[in-house]
């Protein structure tokens, strides 16, 4: 429905810089997710797209039109908030109808549009209730219905599922993706939950300290991280990052030795390996240490091995069990190793 271009966006409050040098081109109908820890600038960036904050510098363009000086109410965007933001004095019907009234949609179309939006989120039985009489999941669906009722050009969703329990969150995730695909509306979604980001996004924008760290598809972000921040932020447990020395293609750190690495770099580097790319024991182990912790989860076992002072996470088989401090070896999948510059954190080719 709309293409959004953010060019050289900066946002600062006095000496505090919230967002710096943000450049993104969001395609029409794309589902893009801003992911990052609290305070990384993702919500501020979304609020600037909504018109709720003014950028200090840079341009926001929607479908070729510069939006910087256009009020939030005059931008064709709909926003879903973390706290639902349903109007407590109105029934769910009136809440969903509110944007239609404000945008001057002819009155005779209201009822049909409200009921259609409510059907979309399976909320038709609750239209005459006040928000206070609904559960968290129902309130979130009501907020979604209010966003979709007038079919805006852009959906903005600010951590819409963070107040829901895990089961409901999963169900709502599926529903949000379904609605977005059905309505084909460009969607910007903010979250700090990597599972939400990975499952919903066409592309993920990873942010830290107000700056973009990487933009890519979920596969690119997971398999081809640009730096140690991205590598450690995505994945559960996160990627193991081991600081050591590289000499003549051999990486060494206390208790760890990986030879024959296809790289010409040398010196201080950080080696990255995901827990699922580690195998307990194996033919020619790269790590020798002791068992620090064993956490069975049912479908697999999380094993923590101590090598030198470093704790390495390994995803072991569901049957794996070991006693504390037992000597253990781990083999790395050499095709899934990553090397990063220890000083800058950037990925080495």
């Amino acid at each position, binding site marked *: 429905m709309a293409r959004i271009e953010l060019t050289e966006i900066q946002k600062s409050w006095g000496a505090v810089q919230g967002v710096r040098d943000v450049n993104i081109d969001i395609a029409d109908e794309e589902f893009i997710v801003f992911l990052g820890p609290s305070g990384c600038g993702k919500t501020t960036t979304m*609020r600037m797209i*909504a*018109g*709720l904050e003014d950028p200090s510098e840079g341009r926001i363009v929607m479908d070729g039109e510069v939006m910087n000086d256009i*009020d*939030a*109410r*005059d*931008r064709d*965007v*709909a*926003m879903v*908030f*973390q*706290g639902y*933001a*349903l*109007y*407590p*004095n109105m029934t769910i019907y009136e809440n969903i109808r*509110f*944007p239609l009234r*404000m*945008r001057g949609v002819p009155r005779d179309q209201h009822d049909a549009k409200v009921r259609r939006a409510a059907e979309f989120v399976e909320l038709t039985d609750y239209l005459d209730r006040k928000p206070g009489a609904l559960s968290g999941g129902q309130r979130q669906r009501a907020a979604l219905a*209010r966003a979709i009722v007038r079919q805006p050009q852009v959906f*903005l969703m600010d951590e819409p599922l963070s107040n829901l329990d895990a089961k409901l969150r999963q169900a709502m995730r599926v529903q949000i993706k379904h609605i977005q695909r059905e309505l084909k509306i460009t969607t910007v979604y903010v979250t700090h939950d990597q599972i939400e980001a990975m499952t919903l996004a066409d592309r993920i924008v990873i942010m830290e300290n107000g700056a973009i760290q990487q933009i890519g598809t979920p596969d690119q972000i997971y398999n081809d991280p640009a730096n140690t921040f991205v590598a450690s932020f995505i994945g559960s447990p996160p990627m193991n990052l081991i600081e050591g020395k590289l000499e003549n293609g051999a990486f060494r750190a206390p208790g760890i030795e990986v030879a024959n690495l296809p790289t010409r770099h040398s010196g201080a580097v950080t080696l990255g390996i995901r827990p699922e790319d580690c195998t307990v024991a194996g033919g020619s182990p790269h790590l020798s240490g002791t068992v620090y912790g064993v956490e069975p989860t049912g479908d697999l076992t999380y094993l923590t091995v101590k090598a030198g002072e470093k704790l390495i996470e390994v995803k072991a088989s569901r049957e794996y069990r070991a006693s504390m401090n037992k000597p253990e070896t781990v083999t790395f999948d050499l095709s899934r190793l990553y090397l990063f510059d220890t000083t800058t954190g950037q990925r080495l080719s």
Partner: protein
Amino acid sequence: MTSQRKKAKGESLTLRYLILGGWALFCLAPVLWFLSIGLRPRTEIITAQPIYFPSFSLDAWHMIWEDWPMAAYLRNSIAAIIGSVIIDLVLAIPAAYSLSRFSYKGRDDIGFYILSTRMMAPAIVAVPIFFLFRNFGLLDTIWALMLIYAAINLSFVTWIIRSYMLDIPKELEDAAKTDGAGEIRILWEIIIPAVLPGIITASVIAMIFAINEFLFTLLIASTPDAYTMSVALSNFTGGSDGVIYNAIALVAFLAFVPVFLVVVAIQKHLSRGLTMGALKG
């Protein structure tokens, strides 16, 4: 075991009712005493000996309605109070909205200045107020009473409503903006309904202050055209008849009734409003 628990629960309930009943009686005693004074003959009230079985008399009732324009006093009171509360709300709601939801230079100073108007003794401004109203030709009018009551109460009405507005999540306004609403619509359709308990609380307190106001009413009102109930009380003292206690008691009771009825009618909102205000600080 169950019967023992039931018995203990019953005893605890009786104790609770006894304590609450005792407290209610303590609070109502002055009102009932006033009513009893108002409905007794004057001779019984000023006697030195206690009277255990007082006689009932409507002398004072007839006197206040027949010898004095009490209906006019009552009407003046109600008109001045309602008018002043309306003026207060019309001014205080936008002021509170501005103080609570917008950032601008000097905002906190303006808020403190508004509150500081309550910090001086009213008598200090009595003479300037008198000359001001005289110059505007408003002396001895209901309009002057409305304005002065509104001016006296405006600061705390603003601050009470402001404290409620501060508690409304910013997200509600942001949602309304992205839904297409302007500032006036947001205030009218989102903010005011959300702070209604605070508006009601502030209005009732303003009414109580207004009905009890004496100094400025005495200064401004000089004829029954503008006399209110509080000033009417002074009619029953110092004349050739001396202090007419039963008439004073009855007029005081009549002044109490309208506020009491308003409080009863909106009790639910008021208790919620007062509790919320307590939490907000």
